[in-house]
């Protein structure tokens, strides 16, 4: 055990944690919107729209996140047309490529979580709203969405933790996030166990925080339906 290395690498890893958290929060933010959009599309009665949304979630849940990042980072640059548009400003940055890939990935999972939450809402709630003469739009925004969010909290907490672990893949596209820095320190010092303990400890601490935050939110906003 090399405690000196553990102590000296701790600030470096903590610095890298900032990037990990940035990646996580941005991708969850965009992913939530994508997920909500596709969950609504999934419940559309039109079979083409429905199939499209199903296909999206199927493809992104069925392939490894690594492939998705590589397609976006290495693959999209190959299309000549894209290079000439303004999108290239975003797509040439590994940071944004990683965020796009994570957001699309977590969006697919979130859409499934939200869909099942929407489907488990008791029809009585919607009927009650209808009989009170509330317009459909407001029923959706004020009744269905809040209930769905509350019901999907535990599953969404798991998704946040999965995404936290997923951000480690950003290190494969040259981003120096927590895993990237950990790998750099391991490959320069050849002391994998010490670095693993420190980096793993930081990850565990973050998962612990997310886990407890979700538990707290569940207690605060959860109710029996």
């Amino acid at each position, binding site marked *: 055990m090399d405690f000196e290395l553990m102590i000296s690498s701790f600030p470096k890893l903590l610095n890298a944690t900032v990037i990990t958290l940035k990646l996580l929060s941005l991708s969850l933010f965009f992913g939530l919107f994508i997920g909500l959009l596709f969950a609504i599309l999934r419940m559309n009665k039109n079979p083409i729209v429905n199939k499209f949304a199903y296909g999206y979630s199927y493809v992104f849940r069925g392939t*490894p996140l690594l492939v998705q990042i*590589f397609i976006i980072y*290495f693959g999209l640059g190959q299309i000549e047309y894209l290079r000439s548009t303004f999108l290239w400003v975003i797509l040439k940055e590994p940071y944004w490529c990683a965020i796009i890939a994570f957001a699309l990935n977590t969006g697919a999972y979130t859409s499934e979580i939200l869909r099942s939450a929407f489907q488990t809402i008791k029809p009585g709630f919607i009927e009650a709203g209808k009989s009170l003469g509330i317009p459909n739009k407001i029923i959706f925004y004020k009744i269905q969405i809040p209930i769905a969010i509350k019901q999907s909290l535990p599953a969404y907490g798991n998704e946040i*933790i999965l995404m936290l672990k997923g951000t480690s893949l950003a290190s*494969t596209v040259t981003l120096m996030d927590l*895993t990237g820095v950990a790998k750099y320190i391991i490959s320069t010092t050849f002391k*994998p*166990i010490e670095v693993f303990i420190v980096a793993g400890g930081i*990850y565990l601490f973050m998962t612990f925080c997310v886990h407890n935050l979700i538990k707290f939110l569940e207690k605060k906003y959860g109710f029996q339906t």
Partner: protein
Amino acid sequence: MELLAFGKSGWGDELFYATLMTIAVSITAMLIGFFFALIFTPLKLSKHKSLNLIGNFYTTVIRGVPELLVIYLFFFGGSGAIMFVASMFGYYEYIEINAFITGSFAIGIISGAYSTEVFRGSIQSIDKGQFEASKVLGIKKHIQFYKVILPQMLRLAIPNLSNVWQITLKDTSLISVTGLVEIMRQSYIAAGSTRDPLFFYSFASFIFITYVFKYETN
């Protein structure tokens, strides 16, 4: 399509062997995972606090730390650990472990943590009366496990195990960082030499989707 031709002109045969490698790694990892689950499920269910702690430590750490970090630990630390053990027996030569073994062991440990949770959940959801009834009938402990608990447990565990299998299969793509030539690595090589990453990575994702498709319909 020329890119996928078999033989020297295309990448068809290389990708085919890489596909077989992915399947081999994921099956080996799954079996190693079962082995770990077999050890840690009783620990998690045991009444002793200290044994319980070991079981919980395993599943919490492995499920809370990114897979890539675990793979790096094994990739960089694996041969060191083996050499350390070997040096205790008086063998000081350099030992290099096969990338296949390190990779499937790392993925196996990750898969084992998920399998442990699945087995624990399904044993706990078996009706308590089943345990009591077999006790009342005077069935011995190990026969009780094999004839009463195991069949019911497997029935509950199999749907969740298919999820674990999918996670394991997708995790095998991460071993490409260690240089084992499976689908991701082969696509990386092919994309590098043909300058056509979009095609090869899309093909890789197509292969992964077809696997998952097969398992989802089962």
